[in-house]
Each structure stands twice: as C-alpha cells, then as structure tokens.
C-alpha cells in the first residue's frame, strides 16, 4: 500500500502528463478566478469556490515541491550521482522564472492600487453630489408644482359625493395628466381610483404614516420610485368637505416625472449609486484583485518551481546514467545496462556510450581469451623447457637473460633465476666460472648480429669448476623479431663432459694397451740377453771388467723389471674387470687397508679419524681397496722428504643438496699441489713425483665415477694437500632397507 502510494507520488511528480494536466487545470481555474473577480454576473457565484480550489491547488503544489526538495536534499547529502547538477539547474530555473514574475507582480500591484485609486477624486465626488442636489431641486420644483395642481384637484372634488367620485376622478386624471388618482377615507380605505394602467388591480395607496401627516398638515408630497415604473411624484392632499354628510377624504395622486427629466434623473441616480458603491467597495475591490493577483503569482511561481524540479531531473537523468556508467566502466564493470532515455543529443550520447561499453566488454573478453591462450602456451613451453635435459637460455636484444630452464641451472651450477633480466657480463661477474661460457656467447652473438640473422653457431666450451672442468656443447641462434618484438637469442647447451671423458678414457685405454704390448714384447728378450751375457762372461772376465759387467747387467735387469711393472700397470689401467657392487662397511675396509701400511716403515704417521656408526656403502670392495691404496701411496709419496710427515684419513657423512654422501678425505702435510697442474691433476701422466706412471689419480677418478661419486683435490691452508672422495649413500642404506641389503648380498 505504502509502495503504491509512493509510486503514485513519484509518477505524479516525475512524469510529464500529470504535470501538464495539473498546470492546465491551474491555468484554467486562474482564468475563471480572474473572470469572476471582474465580472460578477457570469462567474460571481463561483468566486469563492474558485478561490478555495486554487488554494487547494497551491497546497498540493507546495506538497509536491516539498517532496521533491527533501528528495533532492537527501540525495545531495548522500552525494548521489547527478544531485549536484540537478540542484544547480533547479536553482537556475527557479531564479530565471521567479525573478521576472516577481517583478511583474510588484509593478502590477502598484498599478492596481493606483488604478483603483484613480477612479476616485474629490472633484468627481463633489460633482456627483452637486448633480444629485441639482436633480433633487429640479424634482422639488416639479413636486411643488404638482402639489399645487393636486390641491386644485382636491378643491374640485370637495363637493363630489363618494358614489360620483369615480367619474370625476377619471375626468380629473385625464385633465391633470396624473398616472393614478385615488380617493381614500382618512383611515385609508379606498373610495374610488382611476388609473392609466388598466391592468393594475390594486391601486397604490399611501402608507399609514403619510395618512397621519395628511390629517395633520393637509398635504404630503414626495418623489419615490414606484415599482418598475421608475420615479414618480406621490402627492396626498386632504379633500375638505363642505357637506356634513360627506366625511373629510384624502386624494392620492401619482404623477409621472416628465420623460426627459425622468431619464436624466435616473441616469444621475444610477451614476451616483454606482459611484457610492464603488467608493465603499474600494478596499474590498483592491483586496479582491490583490488576492487574485497573488494567487496567480503563487500558482505561477510554484508551478515554475515544480517545473524546474521536473525539467532538471529529466535533463540530468541521462547525465546521471552516463556518470554511473563511466564509474562502472572505470571500476571494470562493462556489463552495466543503460535504460533508454530521451531522443535528443543527450539520449544519443547515452546510446553511444552503451555501444562503446559493449564493444569494450567484447574487446576485453577477446583480450582475456588471448591472454589465457598465451598463458597456456607459455606454461606448456615452460613445462617442455623444464623437462629438457639440455640447458636452454634466451636473451633479449640487449643480451639480457630472459629465460633459463632448470637444466641450465644444473649444468652451469648457478641459480640463474636471480640473474633474470641481467646482462651477460653481470652474470659472468656474479659467477666467475661462467666467464668462458659468457665469452663464447658474446663473441658469437655479437659477430652473428651483423652477418646473418638466422645463422646458427655451434661451439664447445670448457667451464672451470672445482671437481674438474665441464665440457659444454653450445648451440646458438638468433631469434628473429616478430611484429614489433625485437629479436633475441637462444642458446642450447649440453654437458658433454662424461661423453668426452669416456671417449678420452677409451682412447687412453687403447694407447695404454698398445704401448704395453709394444713395450712388453722386447723386454723379455732384453732381460734374457742381459742374463745370458752375465752368465756367460762374468766368470771369464778379469775382476774389474766383471764388476762392470755385473753392475751393468744388474741395472739392465732391474730397469727391465721396473719397466715390466710399469707396463703391467698400464695394461691394468686399460683392462677393466666387471664391477660388482655389494654392501660394504667402508670404515672396516679402510682400517684393514691401513693395517698393511702401519706394519711396515713408511716414513709417515697415519692417523685415522672415522665418524662413529657409518652407514653401509654400496660399492665394489676390490675397486675400493685399489682406490685406497692409490690415495695412500700418493700421500706417502708426497710426504717422503718431509720431516714429521703425517697423513690424516677422515671418514664422515655429508649432506650436499638433497643427497647424503660419504666423504673420504686424505690429508697430508707434504709439498702440496702446484697450481699449474691442479686442473689436470686427474689426467693420466700427470705427476709431480719422479717415480710412478702418473696413473694413480686417474684410476681414483675412474673408480669414483664408476660409483657415481665425485672427487677433487685441494691445497690445505696450513700446507700440504687433501684429496676428497664423495660417494653417494642413498643406494644402500642398511639402517633403512635391511631386506634390500640381504638381496643385494646374494
């Protein structure tokens, strides 16, 4: 119910039709009111009703304006979109409409007052009075004359008896020109009457007070309007009686005023009466006009104010819609609906805005779809790159790093995530071992820049690192720029260290085998020949010659034997027996090997420092023994001329990255390793010692690699060197997988 009323009120105050009807109605009632004020005969009776209707209309208007005003104020306070513009328009409209109307009202009021006042004038009033007096004196003269005439008539009737009176009256009336002659008794009873108007049944008669006066003064005359006949002179005179039988009577005569005079007198009377009435009505008339004018003014102003609200709201409504739409679009909401508005330019603006929003929405959807597609492809690419075993790096046109996959991180052993967006030189500075790699990239990309855009290159790079150099096979290409995207570079690289190593190992193996074979073959004949020479000629020679022979042949034989050993070692390096993994208590194995050395005098003190409770190691015991012998021999050899030689062997578990390793460290206090050979220490034929074939560390490295471990050598800060071997423990953890241990042992 309340909603209905509210809706009705809103419709009433906002839609056009009720406004128009109301305005038309008000104008009509105003017109009627003004007509009623001016002309009493036509709308006179409606005057009051019209006033009431108009006042009610005013109240309704005030109510409507009040509703609109409170609504606007509350919107203004809440800062509703469009309320400020509406308020401003309303104020402008109100000023524009109220100001001129008020001016007109002010001047109209003045004119009204002056206009009505100008009707009245002292001289005019005096003239009116004078003309009235003049008329009266003229009528008086007439009256006196007719009184005299009436007296004569009365004298003529003196002797006439009552029954003959009518005839006399008729004669006298015709003679005197009277309208009516009536003979009455002194008490007022009509005796006889003669009238010009034959239709009149009841003759006029003087009233009682007149009769009283006649009885006293014998005569009475006055001028009086008689019905519709106009002004007449009424004369009553006593009729004396000479006859005792006839009682005294009264003659009542009605004389018409001469036509011309009567007309003038009527005019004067009418004008005077009108004037007097107007004088009396001056203030009420003014009030009435002012009231009407004020009502008209109020209705006009209030209608204008209401119309101001109405038109301001209508004018602002498209702007409000636009503002709300703009806000919505700014907030990213493109789905806002726009209600249809007016047909003018503002309406078409709203329509265009709606179209624009719709297009924006579809463009945004399109962009979202493309972005999703790009995102999908990017993640697909990232997944592919992540699974690649080859390292992939892309550089932008300024050779700054854009993309690097996991394999690149692992191969280069640096975290390239941190270096994304950095230039190649900056990367080289942050990781010194990448200098060669970066040099190669720079060299190739800079030179390729100018030559041909799609020329590819391929180069092998050695990356220095602690555990030995890494060999990388790099392939690079220039990425062509596409659609405004500047060109970039891509480089793909693989760690080919193992491959190169394997190839080299195979080559060394072959060399060693052939060399051993080629050298071994003549050794036996040399030895046999030397022994034969000795056997045959030692006894036969003089003692001084014999001694020379004996010394020479012994040297030959010893050297051949030593050469045989060397050849044997070479052939052993080349011959690789099949590896047999088994769970191994490595500390026990190390202790066993150390025992052999501690039994004999080796010129150095060996100290074992093992971590308690070492886990089992999955390894080949024979290979491990060989490894230990090599390491210990190496250490003994490097400490041979050092006083107080000391070899410390430590065993401990270390965790590097996410894998647990067993670390064997052989530390001596010998001469240390010269920087010149530190990098090629593990290559065959690399040695600092006068004795030996330089195969010791090469064998160590081979065995370690067979066990998937790493090994490196370093100089100690306090002097001497350390060789470190790290072997993975994860394969055979006895504490965690005893069943696996049993199976593996079998």
């Amino acid at each position: 119910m309340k909603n209905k009323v509210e809706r009705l009120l809103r419709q009433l105050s906002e839609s056009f039709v009720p406004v128009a009807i109301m305005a038309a109605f008000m104008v009509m009632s105003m017109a009627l009111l003004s007509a009623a004020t001016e002309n009493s005969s036509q709308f006179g009776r409606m005057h009051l009703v019209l006033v009431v209707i108009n006042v009610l209309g005013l109240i309704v208007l005030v109510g409507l304006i009040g509703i609109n005003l409170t609504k606007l104020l509350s919107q203004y306070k809440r800062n509703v979109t469009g309320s400020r513009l509406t308020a401003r328009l309303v104020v402008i409209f109100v000023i524009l409409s109220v100001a001129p109307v008020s001016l007109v009202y002010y001047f109209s009021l003045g004119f009204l007052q002056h206009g009505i006042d100008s009707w009245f004038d002292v001289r005019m009033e005096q003239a009116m009075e004078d003309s009235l007096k003049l008329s009266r004196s003229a009528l008086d003269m007439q009256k006196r004359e007719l009184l005299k005439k009436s007296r004569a008539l009365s004298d003529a009737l003196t002797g006439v008896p009552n029954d003959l009176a009518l005839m006399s009256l008729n004669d006298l009336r015709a003679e005197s020109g009277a309208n009516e002659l009536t003979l009455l008794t002194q008490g007022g009873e009509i005796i006889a009457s003669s009238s010009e108007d034959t239709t009149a049944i009841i003759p006029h008669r003087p009233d009682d007070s007149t009769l009283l006066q006649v009885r006293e003064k014998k005569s009475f005359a006055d001028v009086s309007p008689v019905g519709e006949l106009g002004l007449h002179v009424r004369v009553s005179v006593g009729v004396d009686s000479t006859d005792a039988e006839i009682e005294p009577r009264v003659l009542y005569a009605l004389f018409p005023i001469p036509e011309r005079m009567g007309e003038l007198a009527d005019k004067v009377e009418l004008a005077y009466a009108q004037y007097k009435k107007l004088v009396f009505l001056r203030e009420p008339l003014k009030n009435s006009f002012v009231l009407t004018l004020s009502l008209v003014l109020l209705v006009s102003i209030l209608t204008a104010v209401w119309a101001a609200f109405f038109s301001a709201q209508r004018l602002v409504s498209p702007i409000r819609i636009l503002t709300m739409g703009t806000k919505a679009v700014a907030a990213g909401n493109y789905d806002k609906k726009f209600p249809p508005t007016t047909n003018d330019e503002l309406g078409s603006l709203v329509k265009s805005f709606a179209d624009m929003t719709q297009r924006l929405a579809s463009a945004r959807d399109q962009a979202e779809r493309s972005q999703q597609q790009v995102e999908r492809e990017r993640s697909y690419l990232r997944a592919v790159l992540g699974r690649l075993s080859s390292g992939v790096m892309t550089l932008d046109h300024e050779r700054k790093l854009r993309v690097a996959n996991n394999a690149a991180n692992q191969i280069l052993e640096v975290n390239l995530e941190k270096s994304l967006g950095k230039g190649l030189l900056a990367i080289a500075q942050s990781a010194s071992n990448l200098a060669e790699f970066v040099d190669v990239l720079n060299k190739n990309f800079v030179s390729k820049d100018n030559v041909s855009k799609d020329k590819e290159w391929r180069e092998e790079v050695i990356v220095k690192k602690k555990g030995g150099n890494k060999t990388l096979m790099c392939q690079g290409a220039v990425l062509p720029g596409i659609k405004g995207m500047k060109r970039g570079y891509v480089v793909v690289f693989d760690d080919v260290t193992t491959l190169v190593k394997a190839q080299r190992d195979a080559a060394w193996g072959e060399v060693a085998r052939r060399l051993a074979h080629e050298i071994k073959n003549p050794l036996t004949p040399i030895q046999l020949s030397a022994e034969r020479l000795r056997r045959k000629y030692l006894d036969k020679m003089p003692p001084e010659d014999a001694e020379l022979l004996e010394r020479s042949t012994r040297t030959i034989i010893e050297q051949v034997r030593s050469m045989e050993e060397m050849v044997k070692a070479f052939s052993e390096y080349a011959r690789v027996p099949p590896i047999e993994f088994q769970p191994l208590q490595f500390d026990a194995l190390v202790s066993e090997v150390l025992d052999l050395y501690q039994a004999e005098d080796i010129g150095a003190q060996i100290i074992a420092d093992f971590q308690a409770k070492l886990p089992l190691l999955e390894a080949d015991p024979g290979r491990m023994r060989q490894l230990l012998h090599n390491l210990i021999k190496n250490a003994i050899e490097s400490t041979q001329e050092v006083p107080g030689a000391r070899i410390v062997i430590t065993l401990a578990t270390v965790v590097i990255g996410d894998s647990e390793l067993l670390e064997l460290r052989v530390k001596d206090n010998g001469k240390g390793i010269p920087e010149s050979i530190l990098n090629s220490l593990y290559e065959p034929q690399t040695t600092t010692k006068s004795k030996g074939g330089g195969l010791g560390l090469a064998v160590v490295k081979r065995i370690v690699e067979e066990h998937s471990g790493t090994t490196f050598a370093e100089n100690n800060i306090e002097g001497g060197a350390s060789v470190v071997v790290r072997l993975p423990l994860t394969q055979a953890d006895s504490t965690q997988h005893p069943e696996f241990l049993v199976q593996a042992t079998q």
Partner: protein
Amino acid sequence: MLGTLYAATPLLAAEPGFTITRAEAKLVNQVYHLSVHIEYEFSKKVLEAIQSGVPMVIALEIEVRRPRNYMWDEQIAQLKQRFQLQYHALAEQYIVENLNSGAQNTAPTLNTALFYIRNIDDLPLIDQQLLKPDEEYQVRLKVGLEFDSLPVPLRLSAYTSRSWWLGSGWFVWDL
C-alpha cells in the same frame, strides 16, 4: 397592535445581530400560518454598505422537520423568504422589496423601512393533511444576510469578517 410591537423593539439594541423574538404557527382552515417577529440590529460596517447603496438581501429560512431517534431528522417542508433592502439616493428613500412576491415598499428612514420586514404575519406554512396526526413535528427558522447576493469583492470579506455575520441561530419549536 402596531404600537405594542413598535414599543418592544429598541430595548435590546446593543449587540449587532438579527434576533427572532417570537414565532408561532396558527392553524387556519387546516393550513398552518406562520407569524414571526424579528429584531434587526445592523453593525456599523453593514450600515455603511447599505448607505452606500449596496443592496442587502435578508433571507428567512423556514423548515418543518420530523425528529427521528436514530437518524437525522426528516425534512417535510422548506421555504425561504428573501427581502432586499436598498437605499435610493436621489429619492432619499429606503426600498424594501419582497423578492418572493415582488411587493415593494419605500420608507424615508431605515427604521421605518425595517417595519415592513420586522413582522411577517400569516405566512402559509404547510397543509395539515401533509402531517400525520400521531407524529411530532418541529418548525425551525433562522434569519441572516445572504452573502452570495453581495457584490463579488465584498463577498470574501463578508465571509471572513465578524461584523457581517449577523444571522440568528435556529429558532425551534414544536408544531
């Protein structure tokens, strides 16, 4: 008879207003005839208007009603007598006209003019046959100025000013 009425009038001439001092209905030849005596006391404003030539209409409203217990009264008959009082400046006469009958009287003073409307005698009211013998009936009357006959500019001030409200209240008696 005239004398007695005349003497009774001027005693209560203080407050402006019309007063019905006496009213009665007599049954003559099976028809009720009404006799009313009214005292007129004009206010200064109304007197001024009369003297300025504004015609003044005095209306006497007469109603015959049958009172009912749980409803409004039933109206049996209603009549209105209207008199116009006007000053004629040239003749210096007050003209009293019965607007119902057209009968016109003139008088040189207001008081004598009022004489013609002070007493309303033998006004036929209602035929007895129209009334049921066992029912009770009431007659009520009031007299006052008729504002709607005034000139338009005067009407609004007449409605809003006390000095124009001269009408008597209802004068009621059982028939």
